[in-house]
């Protein structure tokens, strides 16, 4: 125990002139969970990619168990016993679990022939030791994100990894799945594995880690013992200034005017009799475990996915929405959880992204795009949302996660949408930018917009929502007022299988349409 496994010193790394790491150091001991913290772009992932051989360092030294080592490729790291689980899961979806775990080191006969029975039984043994109930022959594409993560961990363990680096492992998991993950992390720690845990979620780090190293702007700031340090202290180390984790403001009461009402929305096994209403100026939180059907509700309302039956009423009028185009025409905007894939055209600049959904507005009589008008609108939006970009011509892929999110919000503001559906609005966004997004959401409701906010982070749901819709297995299991919503009450509903609606808040479900 507590032997130093990894020591990194004076690490420098640049990418085509941009300095990503400068004189960084890091120490990992066996049997510890070491959290690596910093805002987006602080260099956490880069430092760990250097350690795991994905990037080669420009300068500095790495010691492994006291011996200086050169780690030039992922395989070299694996052979030393250093494994990394990347933020974007790195699995081959078309292959089975076992084929994924043993990729690159399949047992072979005569150098070229494969034997899948061997890897299947080895994988089964591995799962047994992890108390996981999975068939090694399942195709990875058939697994949930959480299960895919378990496969990645199993893969690391199969290397007899002594160092396990996890880059934001909880970003896509629900609270229950995170607990499952932490159990496995604790098991590994007890076995003496050194674990690096990169995360934005401070509560989580408090809960699981022994020590914390903070990085900022590519530089090492400090390493502290988690138990002796407050969250406020950690945050101030991250941002380099003291900011107060703002206490949730009590949101202004929304008006009673109902802007959207969803009635009896059904789709196969995925959505079962969904009923709820959204008021003007309200933030309606959608909580639930992964796979509860929250995103599916959003996509159905937005016309992105088909549904079997159901009615939508907008401002008391029954409308028919079968495609995103119709949804936008009715003033509904959807901000996907997967910004990079569904929300932005990364290769285009800020200005173009902002006006993309409403180019029609900028057309002249003969069909030219009026670019100066578009630019002016984009500039207005950029200013009012406080988008931090060197210029409007900056390509969106070079912006930070928080600013990208603002660009998506800006896009829907230009499109004149009154109902905005946010799916995980702060996923992958650092602490500083998060509170800005929150402020922005509050500002939007003050302007009379209505917001549906899907989130897997309960503190976020509790902080922002006027009311909380809780879903489980495709049903709404309860709708709570901000007053009565607590982590416990939400979790209880979120795990309430069988779908008994057991709350007197049911009266909120069906306010009369046409009040508007």
């Amino acid at each position, binding site marked *: 125990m507590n032997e130093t496994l990894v020591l990194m010193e004076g690490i420098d790394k640049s990418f085509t002139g941009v300095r990503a790491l400068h004189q960084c150091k890091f120490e990992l001991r066996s049997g510890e969970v070491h959290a690596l913290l910093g805002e987006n772009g602080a260099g956490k992932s880069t430092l760990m990619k250097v350690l795991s051989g*994905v990037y080669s360092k420009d300068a500095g030294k790495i010691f492994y168990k006291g011996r200086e080592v050169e780690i030039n*490729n*992922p*395989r070299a790291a*694996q052979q030393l016993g250093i494994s990394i689980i*990347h933020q974007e899961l*790195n*699995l*081959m*979806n*078309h*292959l089975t679990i076992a*084929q994924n775990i043993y*990729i*690159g*080191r*399949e047992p*072979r006969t005569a*150098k*070229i*022939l*494969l034997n899948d029975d061997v890897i299947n039984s080895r994988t089964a043994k591995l799962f047994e030791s992890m108390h996981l109930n999975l*068939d090694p*022959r*399942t195709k990875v594409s058939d697994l949930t994100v959480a299960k895919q993560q378990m496969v990645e961990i199993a893969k690391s363990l199969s290397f007899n990894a002594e160092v396990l680096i996890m880059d934001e492992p909880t970003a896509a998991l629900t609270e229950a799945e995170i607990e499952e993950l932490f159990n496995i992390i604790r098991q590994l720690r007890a076995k003496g594995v050194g674990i690096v845990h990169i995360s934005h979620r401070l509560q989580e780090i408090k809960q699981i880690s022994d020590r914390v190293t903070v990085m900022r702007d590519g530089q090492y700031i400090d390493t502290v013992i988690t138990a002796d340090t407050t969250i406020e202290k950690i945050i101030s180390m991250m941002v380099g200034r003291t900011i107060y984790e703002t206490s949730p403001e009590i949101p202004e009461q929304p008006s009673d005017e109902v802007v959207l009402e969803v009635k009896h929305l059904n789709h196969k096994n995925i959505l079962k009799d969904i009923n709820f209403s959204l008021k003007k100026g309200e933030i309606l939180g959608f909580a639930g475990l992964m796979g509860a059907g929250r995103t599916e509700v959003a996509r159905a309302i937005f016309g992105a996915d088909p549904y079997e039956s159901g009615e939508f009423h907008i401002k008391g009028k029954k409308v028919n929405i079968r495609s995103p185009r119709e949804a936008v025409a009715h003033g509904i905007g959807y901000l996907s959880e997967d910004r990079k894939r569904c929300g932005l055209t990364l290769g285009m600049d800020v200005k173009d992204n902002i006006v993309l959904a409403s180019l029609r507005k900028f057309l002249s009589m003969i069909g030219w795009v009026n670019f100066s008008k578009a630019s002016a609108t984009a500039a207005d939006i950029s200013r009012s949302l406080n988008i931090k970009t060197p210029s409007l011509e900056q390509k969106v892929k070079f912006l930070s996660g928080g600013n990208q999110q603002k660009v998506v919000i800006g896009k829907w503001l230009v499109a004149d949408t009154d109902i905005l559906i946010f799916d995980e609005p702060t996923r992958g966004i650092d602490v500083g930018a998060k509170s800005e997004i929150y402020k922005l959401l509050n500002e939007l409701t003050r302007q009379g917009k209505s917001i549906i906010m899907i989130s897997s982070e309960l503190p976020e749901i509790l902080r922002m929502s006027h009311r909380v819709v809780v879903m489980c297995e495709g049903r709404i299991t309860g709708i709570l007022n901000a007053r009565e919503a607590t982590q416990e009450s939400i979790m209880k509903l979120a795990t309430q299988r069988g779908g008994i609606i057991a709350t007197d808040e049911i009266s909120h479900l069906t306010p009369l349409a046409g009040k508007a």
Partner: protein
Amino acid sequence: MKTDSVLKTSLFRKDAMQRLLAFGALIFLFIGFSIASPYFRTFDNMVGILLATAVNGVLALGVTFVIISGGIDLSVGTVLTVSAVMTGVFITNNHFPVWLGIIGGILTGGLAGITNGFLIAKMKIPPFIATLGMLYATKGLALVISELKPIYFNDTPIFRSMAMDSILGKIIPGFEIPNAVLLLFFAAIIANLILSRTILGRYTFAIGSNEEATRLSGVNVDAWKIAVYTLCGLFSGLAGVLIAARLNSAQPALGSGYELDAIAATVIGGTSLSGGEGTILGTVIGAFIISTLTNGLRIMSVPQEWQMVITGGIVILAVYADILRRRNK
């Protein structure tokens, strides 16, 4: 035990669907043409279909590997040409022993393949562009090497008879199926073994499924990509030898456009152009569908230009059926 059987049947079902669909289409075509034309169902015509499939089928085997790996090879048709021409140069012009000439022809294809692989894996040229360049280069080289003239194999009649005689006919009298057809099935079995049982096959799928993840797993992706294109080149070379033997000559202007038939056969057979999915059996069935269609339409005296239109429709229909199947999953 129980999960075992459940899993096997479900796996079988999923993978088998497209093959079943393609196979059903093939049967449908056979029945349709048989009813429409008595000549279609004669033994001689069946042999004709089989022979026509042999060359395109062997080409498509190589293309299947490339497409599963997430790439594309547009040069297989003209690599076939240059391989045929080189076989002629070896055997007729330079009087090599026939077996050596054959190996030389196949290796010519391999050389083109390895070049493709190098351009794509090491020089990072997109597969479409790299193999488009190779298409032009080999097309020209075939003309240069042959000096624009066909090379005949009249001095070595054994070369033609290797492909066109029938070993099977000697064993089962009356069942005179040319060796070229046996070669297709033999090559398909080898290809299937490589794809499903060897490390090369596994990495072909892995690279097509997620190249970056494969690289990060410590697999030498560049080397395996080169191997995939080389294998494709070797199959093209084999197809070149086959067509030379069948025609008893190396025709320097033949082969352009064959790559499209090969890609079509692969796609009809259910190989996904986005990589990661595909089977050899599917490709073979796809190749049979194309030659059956061409043969049947010709017998029914549909003009050649309309045959092309119909083939185009079939390719689009096959891919659409595949998309529908995925959506329902």
